[in-house]
């Protein structure tokens, strides 16, 4: 907590040093790069269950994760008065996992019981307000011990003539490398040292389109559709599968996967105090998984600057064709997994958030624009439960 406040104090000082007027009395917009917004999001996540994929669908799923994301958005206008926005983000997660520790079944606290994930990204976009058009591009990187990813995307959006609708198209790609860390008893040629692990590719190509529409002064909706093609090594090498004859194998899943999620959002401002945020997603893929997600959140404005937001999310999915429980798969199966994340289940996620954005700034500091806290509890029908608490500090 002390670190968060020290970081916050540092950000306020930084913002004060960058602060400048963007418009003078003649309406002239500054062409200098200025900080638009800074966000710091910290989360603590913890889960427990008894279906760890590392131990073949049995065993502890206990895991904790501390995530911190620092995000700075900068903007400037060019000679043609187009707005350029640059968004730099750095994320660091540190997690401990009881199941990852079981890559070596005899270890009590092996090197794999914890890891740190580092994921910076850089987004750029240029908005032509006169034409209602925005184009942009982004690059991302993610690294943890057994996984490395390079990502990129390009985006195009066009508003309708009356500025009440907007069409967006996006193409994303992730070129990933999976380190082949096998369960220790399945390694050949003795125990490998860290730098000996071979790697293999997992590539993802995704096309996304969305259309948002203002219906009236209180209601706006959005349709979203993705088509995602993944290819390469789509299993995880340290996931064990125990066959009915008690033999142990590495998870083996097909090398391609086609995913099609379709989503719908509708947000409605009810009266002067209530907002209804709703979301529904239908998902299907060629591994046989079909899912439905429904989410509702109702921010209640206690004052114009203070709101509480209870939320509820329901999720259900069917199992993929290649899932079976511990000691159920047979030698006849070409593909196999005992990962319960791909099994049939339903889940409920509920909680609440509180958001405070006073006009004179939080604690009277004008650049400290908003503070938000959110807690959620997750229950899955397989027995897995988790809790998450997050805080967002926003500076402007």
């Amino acid at each position, binding site marked *: 907590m002390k670190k968060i406040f020290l970081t916050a104090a540092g950000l306020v000082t930084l913002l004060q040093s960058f602060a400048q007027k963007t418009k003078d009395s003649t309406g002239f917009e500054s062409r200098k790069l200025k900080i638009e917004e800074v966000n710091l999001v910290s989360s603590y996540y913890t889960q427990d269950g008894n279906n760890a994929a590392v131990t073949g669908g049995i065993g502890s799923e206990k895991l904790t994760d501390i995530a911190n994301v620092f*995000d700075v958005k900068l903007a400037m206008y060019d000679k043609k008065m187009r707005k350029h926005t640059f968004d730099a983000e750095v994320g660091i997660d540190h997690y401990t996992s009881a199941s990852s520790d079981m890559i070596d079944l005899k270890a009590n606290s092996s090197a794999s019981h914890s890891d740190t*994930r580092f994921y910076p990204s850089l987004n750029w976009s240029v908005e032509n307000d006169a034409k209602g058009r925005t184009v942009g591009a982004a690059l991302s990187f993610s690294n943890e011990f057994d996984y490395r990813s390079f990502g990129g995307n390009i985006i195009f959006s066009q508003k309708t003539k009356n500025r009440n609708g907007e069409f967006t198209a996006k193409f*994303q790609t992730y070129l990933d490398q999976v380190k082949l860390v096998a369960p220790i008893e399945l390694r050949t040629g003795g125990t490998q040292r860290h730098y000996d692990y071979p790697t293999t590719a997992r590539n993802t190509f995704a096309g996304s389109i969305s259309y948002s529409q203002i219906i009236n002064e209180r209601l706006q909706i959005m349709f979203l*559709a993705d088509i995602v093609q993944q290819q390469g090594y789509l299993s995880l090498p340290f996931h064990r599968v125990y066959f009915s004859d008690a033999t142990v194998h590495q998870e083996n899943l097909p090398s391609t996967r086609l995913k099609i*999620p379709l989503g719908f959002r509708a947000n409605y401002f009810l009266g002067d105090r209530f907002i209804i945020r709703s979301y529904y997603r239908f998902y*299907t893929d060629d591994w046989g998984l079909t899912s439905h997600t429904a989410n509702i959140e109702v921010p209640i404005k206690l004052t114009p600057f203070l709101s509480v937001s209870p939320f509820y999310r329901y999720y259900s*999915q069917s199992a993929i064709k290649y899932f079976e429980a511990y000691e159920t798969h047979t030698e006849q199966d070409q593909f196999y997994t005992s990962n319960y994340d791909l099994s049939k289940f339903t889940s409920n*996620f509920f909680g609440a958030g509180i958001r405070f954005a006073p006009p004179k700034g939080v604690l009277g500091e004008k650049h400290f624009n908003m503070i938000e806290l959110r807690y959620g509890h997750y229950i899955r029908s397989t027995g897995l439960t988790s809790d*998450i608490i997050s805080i967002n500090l926003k500076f402007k």
Partner: protein
Amino acid sequence: MIPQKIKKNLIIMLSIITTSLLAYSCTTVKEYQKNRLNDGEMGLSNRKIEKTELSFQAYREGSSGANAGKSGGGCGCN
């Protein structure tokens, strides 16, 4: 080649979306009428504070995407 089951589900979903679109008769809302729509909690995108939630859902569930965020790849998730 899209499998038959996926095709069937897609047709059903697209029919629902098209019907919904046709059912709406939108009115043009002027900029000065958008004070409620411009409220910080009325945005149609994910909020910053949801970032870790969406990430753990992508790990713990078999589906992802159609939320203007990641739809696969970039992590050791499903």
